[in-house]
């Protein structure tokens, strides 16, 4: 495994390096929380909480442990734990609320119609993701939305690489069955 430059800096000074830990990993952490919870507001809270848990842990870790940390999988593991706790606390409450509140910013190169259409398709795909069973949803999000390599996914999900791969395959399979016939 490659040595993480940030981990080396954490080893020297947690307080100095932590702002860059947030800056470097906030998008992956937020995207994971958003696409698994399906709720923009929950995602912001969970992502912030994940960094605070990480911060408290980092302050107590011995230097040799800090230096060897693989930050992204470690942070995403914390996110998954928080999402699991939240899901458990909330019972099986539908996660749809707030999904529409998040609109991707138009990049200026597409027409408003194209943008609206793309946004509509994205919202529907985002909503479909939240209907996947837990492990499949997590696997599809980590692999295809966040873009993790299988080795890193396996660490985050605490399973062998082969299992992670099959969760992804079955998740994609199920997503396809959710796409309405006329849209295929």
């Amino acid at each position, binding site marked *: 495994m490659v040595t993480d430059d940030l981990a080396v800096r954490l080893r020297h000074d947690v307080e100095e390096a932590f702002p860059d830990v947030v800056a470097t990993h906030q998008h992956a952490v*937020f995207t994971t929380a958003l696409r698994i919870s399906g709720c923009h507001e929950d995602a*912001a809270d969970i992502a912030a909480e994940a960094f*605070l848990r990480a*911060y408290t842990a980092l302050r107590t870790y011995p230097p040799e442990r800090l230096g060897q940390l693989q930050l992204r999988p470690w942070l995403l593991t914390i996110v998954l734990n928080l999402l699991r706790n939240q899901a458990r606390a909330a019972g099986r409450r539908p996660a749809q609320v707030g999904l529409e509140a998040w609109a991707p910013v138009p990049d200026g190169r597409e027409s408003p119609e194209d943008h609206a*259409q793309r946004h509509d398709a994205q919202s529907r*795909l985002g909503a479909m993701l939240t209907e996947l069973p837990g492990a499949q949803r997590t696997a599809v999000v980590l692999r295809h*939305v966040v*873009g993790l390599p299988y080795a890193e996914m396996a660490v985050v999900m605490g399973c062998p690489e082969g299992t992670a791969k099959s969760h992804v395959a079955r998740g994609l399979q199920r997503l396809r069955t959710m796409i309405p016939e006329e849209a295929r």
Partner: protein
Amino acid sequence: MTTLPSDDAVLAGQLAALAAPAPASFADSIFARWVEVDGPVGSLYVAFTDRGISYVCPTAWMDGDRDRFVDYYRGRFGRPLRPAPKAPAGLAGALAAGRGAGLDYDLRSVGEFDRKVLAKTLEIPPGEVRPYAWIAREIGHPAAVRAAGSALGRNPVPVLIPCHRVVRSDGATGNYGFGPALKVDLLHFEQVNLDEVRALGRRGVHYVASDTTGVFCHPSCHHARRITPGHRVELATAKAAIDGGFRPCRHCRPA
């Protein structure tokens, strides 16, 4: 009609487009900020988050050592802390006036009961004091007098949320998180007549009434302080006041 792809490569592309940047204000929800400001009786370290003021500490309590304060905050609140370019709006004015009610507070570090106690404490005006039992009664837990005292002892934002204005019914000023002497200094600064508070407490006088208005008050209520000596009636209990035909003051709510 928008279409969703059935082809894996296209589907993967659509999924990748679901990656979303964290909100622009995301770092503010993680990092707290701190400033050093002049307080009524010495300078204060004040820490705040995107939700409001989260911690206040006299600099003297940390021997004026900023690093010690910063490290203490980070450990106690589990939150990184950076210097702030400027103090939260309204902080200086609130400290000068002794009125912190207009500021935002981040009280996530304490529980629901403590938050109720602190919200009630915020209503006590400068120059006045209330007994612990008053807080307990006002928040709907009249038996929880000790619990109210403990909650005030844990107040993360002293001075601004004026827990120093809550005193014992026997006239003693009682305990304070940063030492009883500072509590006395703060009350003196706010021109509370502590000699009178103590003397009345020792004599078992907990309320005073006016025989012209027919209203009874806590002795430090600004309405009570206007009663001329000839019309002033001293009372031990709210029941005695009500039995005597007095009605409770709407400002200091003695019953």
